[in-house]
């Protein structure tokens, strides 16, 4: 007996999770912890800024972080790097706001950050990490505790869970039910941010049919996004163009790409 199209259970159907930018932005309330993926979900961030959200604790780096600070949305930054690479050693709004004491910094580094996100994802009170032992990080960030491991007595850092209330990401494609398929790589840190967060919104270049997802289930990188926002070209303008086309729009042919490059 084959299921037919539109088969219902007790008269209800599987709920689609597609919302628009305005509704997605309303998920983020004043004072929440917000994590921002990379490539940056600029379409969603623009709506956050438009709403004038305040006092956020933000897990982000680079230029999207600087934009949120410049717009006055941020009270605290969980920061491992706030620079813009060549020619921009320190992101200007971050530097100004910290030096004036307008925002707080939860000082960390890449390994500590992903360890804290992992602890949150696995509902652990902390996870150990070695990078940062001997440095000033536990002094300037009292949430990081130096401890002796109970098995061998090695000195390590205990990293507490870092749990975003909302994670905002950008990816290539998703179906209506929150099955996301990044293409060309799962972003810089997106999967850690998704696993740790209470709720995740993913804006995508294309919304595709559930059948397309089923055709290649191994390609599904996020199995349960809470909401999908359709946002073609939605990571412009902060994603470098050449990277953008590689990671986000690989379905375009080279000759189509050459129009943009």
């Amino acid at each position, binding site marked *: 007996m084959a299921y037919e199209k539109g088969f219902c259970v007790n008269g209800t159907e599987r709920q689609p999770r597609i919302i628009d930018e305005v509704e997605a932005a309303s998920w983020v309330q004043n004072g929440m912890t917000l994590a921002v993926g990379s490539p940056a979900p600029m379409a969603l961030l623009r709506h956050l800024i438009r709403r004038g959200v305040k006092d956020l604790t933000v897990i982000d*780096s680079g230029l999207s972080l600087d934009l949120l600070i410049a717009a006055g949305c941020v009270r605290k930054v969980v*920061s*491992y*790097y*706030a*620079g813009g*690479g*060549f*020619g921009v*050693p*320190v*992101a200007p709004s*971050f*530097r100004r706001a*910290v*030096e004036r*004491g307008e925002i707080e910094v939860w*000082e*960390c*580094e*890449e*390994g*500590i*950050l*992903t360890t804290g*996100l*992992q602890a949150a994802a696995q509902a652990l009170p902390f996870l150990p*990490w*070695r*990078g*940062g*032992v*001997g*440095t*000033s*990080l536990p*002094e*300037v960030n009292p949430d990081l505790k130096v401890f002796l491991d109970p098995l061998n007595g*090695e*000195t390590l850092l205990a990293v507490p869970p870092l749990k975003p209330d909302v994670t905002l990401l950008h990816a290539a494609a998703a179906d209506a039910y929150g099955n996301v398929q990044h293409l060309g*790589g*799962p*972003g*810089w*840190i*997106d*999967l*850690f941010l998704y696993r740790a967060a209470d709720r995740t919104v993913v804006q995508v270049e294309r919304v595709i049919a559930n059948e397309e997802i089923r055709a290649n289930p191994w390609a599904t990188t996020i199995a349960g996004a809470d909401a999908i926002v359709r946002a073609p070209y939605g990571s412009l303008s902060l994603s*470098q163009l*050449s*990277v953008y086309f*590689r990671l986000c729009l690989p379905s375009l042919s080279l000759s189509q790409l050459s129009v943009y490059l």
Partner: protein
Amino acid sequence: MPNDYSLQELMAIVLARDLKDGEVLRVGVAMPVVEAAVRLAHLRHGPNMELIFLGARMNVAHLYSLPMPAFGWDRRVVRWAESYSDTGHRFERLKDWHNHVFFIGGVQVDPYGNTNLIGVGPDYHQLRFRGPGSVGTPTLSTHVGRYYIVLNSHTPRIFVERCDYISSYGWGTGGADARRRVGLPGGGPKYCVTPLCVMDFADDTKRLRLHSLHAGVSEAEVRAQTGFALQTSTPIATTEPPSAEELHTLRTRVDPTGFLRR
């Protein structure tokens, strides 16, 4: 021609000479001298090296040239990658990093090669200068087999008796067992390369020591530009200038547009 080289070219060549075939070279962001050094070593004498630019891992020994990046994740460079890894997954095989090499900068460096990317000022909550943050340097400097401190300028503001904050532990408070004492598995910093000189770390104290002066630089000048007493090895060597072949390879195969000559 060998008399006519830029300091950045010299620094790149000095670093390249010290890199060995088969090593894994990890390059962070915004260090043109290092970008050139790993390319030069790979193309001249390192066909089995692996170059990792921000998680893009490649071997391009078959290429005549690999472009210098104009920005962090430059497509012209990362298109050659054999694999990518993201921020967290990069750290999944730290146990095998003995032959990995890293390069680090800093807004402050102390006599024991501890470095600071956090900021400058006695009160952390009122920094005079806020730095970019540690990126991944605490973890990298903890685990790599050795690393190099590479600086674009050599001033008393950078070379200080005490870093206001330490983001990467080099040789701590000194002594050959400085890293073992706190349980850091990696080999620590080997050289500090600046536009004036090359410094190494004395075997017993692990304090910075003048290793060689670049041509035309006096010992007095280095001392005046260093905010702490610098040991010297006697006699002080002159940094071996680039050979004609090194410069030719650098300028034709690594940096044809003169990134390091600007």
